[in-house]
């Protein structure tokens, strides 16, 4: 037996190719949308991976430091370090803001890292150019997607920083590139008040007779100093000894320090399950719409192709072709359309993904799921055409 579907496709190949390409572009968009979601999840994961921490200690009852703001005293790390099982602790601050260079600026997440050696929690794990931050002030390591170069001078709030190192794939959970600076500078950037505010505060404090007592000369200065110093960070990153279980150590910190502690899995749940949940739903909605549009296109094309063949189908039935053969002819054509569409879509997505401003991660599982969804959509979309074909009366071939 010859393949009726195959012959028809060869005969009307132009129609199939062009429809397939159209469908393919749509499938490309769909795969890319899925890739955008995967990219967001991956952004969250690399952020966690790169921070080289087992536990995140944050302000009590907050989802900090990435999903909510959290501030904890910057000397807490010392006492956490004394707890059993804790190998290393490091303060860190995170603040997403505009980072300027000349008259341009880039949206970036400014990460404050404690002085130390490479491998300290919070530090960029590896550089692709330059060196790590070695001085306590005014140096920066930036992700290459900021487009900053080694030696560039950046402006963050009132201070200027020289780019000494470049790194890659260091992004925030919303895909903004990371700029690493020393933690003292970062604390200032986050908590520092401007000069006018400091002056106002000083005047108000001076006017308060409780603080400004003639008999206690040092008190006023001490109070003012405590106002203007920046003794807070967003989180303490904790690395634990391998022989200890993260949740045991986390429980210790919770109990003794009355702080909220997240382990890696919980942090991932916050980033993936909460922070990007709305975006994920948005993308899911798009995927549903795109699937419906793909289905509508396939249904329409297969329906018209079948409509065009009513007479031939009547003749085929009259000369003894079984319904099964006719149904499989329509199904095969629809599946071929789906396969052409998928191949075109996969190629489009692969070439388009790197051009997107945010990370688009095409994973094999999505491609496979996409492939089978498309086949399923094609089968469903041919139902209308199949029903029509089954209703065609072989008597029509004989006519009136």
């Amino acid at each position, binding site marked *: 037996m010859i393949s009726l579907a195959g012959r028809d496709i060869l005969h*009307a190949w132009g129609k199939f190719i062009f429809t397939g390409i159209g469908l393919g572009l749509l499938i490309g968009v769909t795969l890319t949308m899925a890739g955008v979601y995967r990219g967001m999840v991956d952004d969250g994961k690399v952020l966690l991976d790169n921070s080289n921490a087992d536990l995140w200690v944050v302000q009590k009852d907050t989802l900090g430091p990435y999903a909510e703001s959290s501030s904890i005293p910057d000397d807490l790390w010392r006492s956490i370090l004394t707890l059993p099982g804790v190998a290393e602790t490091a303060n860190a601050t995170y603040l997403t803001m505009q980072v300027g260079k000349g008259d341009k600026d880039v949206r970036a997440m400014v990460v404050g890292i404690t002085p130390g050696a490479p491998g300290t929690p919070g530090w960029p794990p590896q550089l692709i150019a330059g060196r790590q931050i070695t001085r306590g002030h005014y140096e920066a390591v930036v992700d290459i997607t900021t487009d900053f170069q080694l030696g560039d001078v950046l402006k963050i709030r009132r201070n200027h920083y020289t780019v000494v190192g470049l790194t890659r794939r260091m992004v925030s959970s919303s895909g903004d590139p990371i700029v690493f600076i020393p933690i003292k500078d970062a604390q200032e950037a986050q908590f520092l008040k401007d000069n006018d505010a400091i002056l106002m505060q000083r005047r108000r404090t001076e006017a308060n007779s409780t603080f400004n007592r003639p008999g206690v000369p040092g008190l006023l200065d001490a109070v003012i100093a405590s106002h203007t110093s920046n003794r807070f960070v967003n989180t303490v990153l904790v690395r634990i000894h391998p022989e200890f279980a993260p949740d045991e150590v986390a429980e210790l910190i919770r109990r003794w320090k009355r702080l909220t502690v997240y382990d890696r899995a919980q942090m991932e749940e916050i980033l993936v399950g909460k922070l990007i949940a709305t975006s994920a739903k948005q993308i899911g909605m798009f995927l549903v719409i795109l699937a419906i549009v793909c289905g509508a296109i396939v249904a329409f094309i297969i329906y018209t192709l079948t409509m065009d063949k009513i007479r031939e189908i009547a003749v085929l039935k009259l000369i003894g072709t079984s319904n099964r053969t006719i149904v499989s002819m329509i199904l095969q054509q629809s599946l071929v359309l789906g396969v052409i569409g998928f191949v075109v879509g996969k190629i489009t997505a692969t070439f388009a993904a790197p051009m997107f401003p945010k990370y688009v991660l095409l994973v094999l599982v999505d491609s496979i799921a996409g492939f089978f969804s498309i086949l399923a959509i094609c089968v469903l979309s041919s139902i209308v055409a199949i029903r029509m074909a089954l209703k065609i009366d072989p008597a029509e071939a004989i006519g009136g």
Partner: protein
Amino acid sequence: MADKGILIKSLSKRYGGGETAVLALKDVNMRVSPGEVVGLIGPSGSGKSTLLKCLGAVIDPTTGSMVLGEEVIFDNEWKVRDLRALRRDKIGFVFQAPYLIPFLDVTDNVALLPMLAGVSNSEARKRALTLLTALDVQHRAKAMPAQLSGGEQQRVAIARGLVNHPPVILADEPTAPLDSVRAMTVIRILNDMAKRFDTAVIVVTHDEKIIPTFKRIYHIRDGVTYEEAGEGRPLH
């Protein structure tokens, strides 16, 4: 008689029921022997197409009987289970328009029928080529239907009607779109093939040019058939 060929006795067909019922066939009696070509003529609305559809097993007759070869295929009800296979193996169709499958080449248009019956592709194509040669269109065997002239298409359609060597061929106005020379050619081919493959051929026609060629003619009026001797003019 009742040896081979087709025998139809008191066939009737009613469309619909109740007040709107139409008795399209009232009393149809026909006998066509193997190798014979008979004409079926009648005015519009007399029941020609209805009769062809009954014979072609695409609609159900109401009462009567039909015998094909030695097999009773209808006796107030269908006696064969698989009408599709009946159409495929026992009945050849030739239409007014050739109705070739546009996406198959000439050979496969003809070979499709034996393929549907389970014959291997190569064997089916061999059979098709034999018939195409007999009908003198073998040089167009690889062409697509759209590339053929009307007469060539009609010959391919006849080849398709004959390829499974059915005992009966039903031809519905097979010469309508053709000029008189080509019309005569088609009738000659049908006669030749009828003799060669022992096929009973029924030709429904209005065509004045070909009516004198039949030896026997069935007239149908208001669903009733009347047999009549034709001129049986020799074919040249």
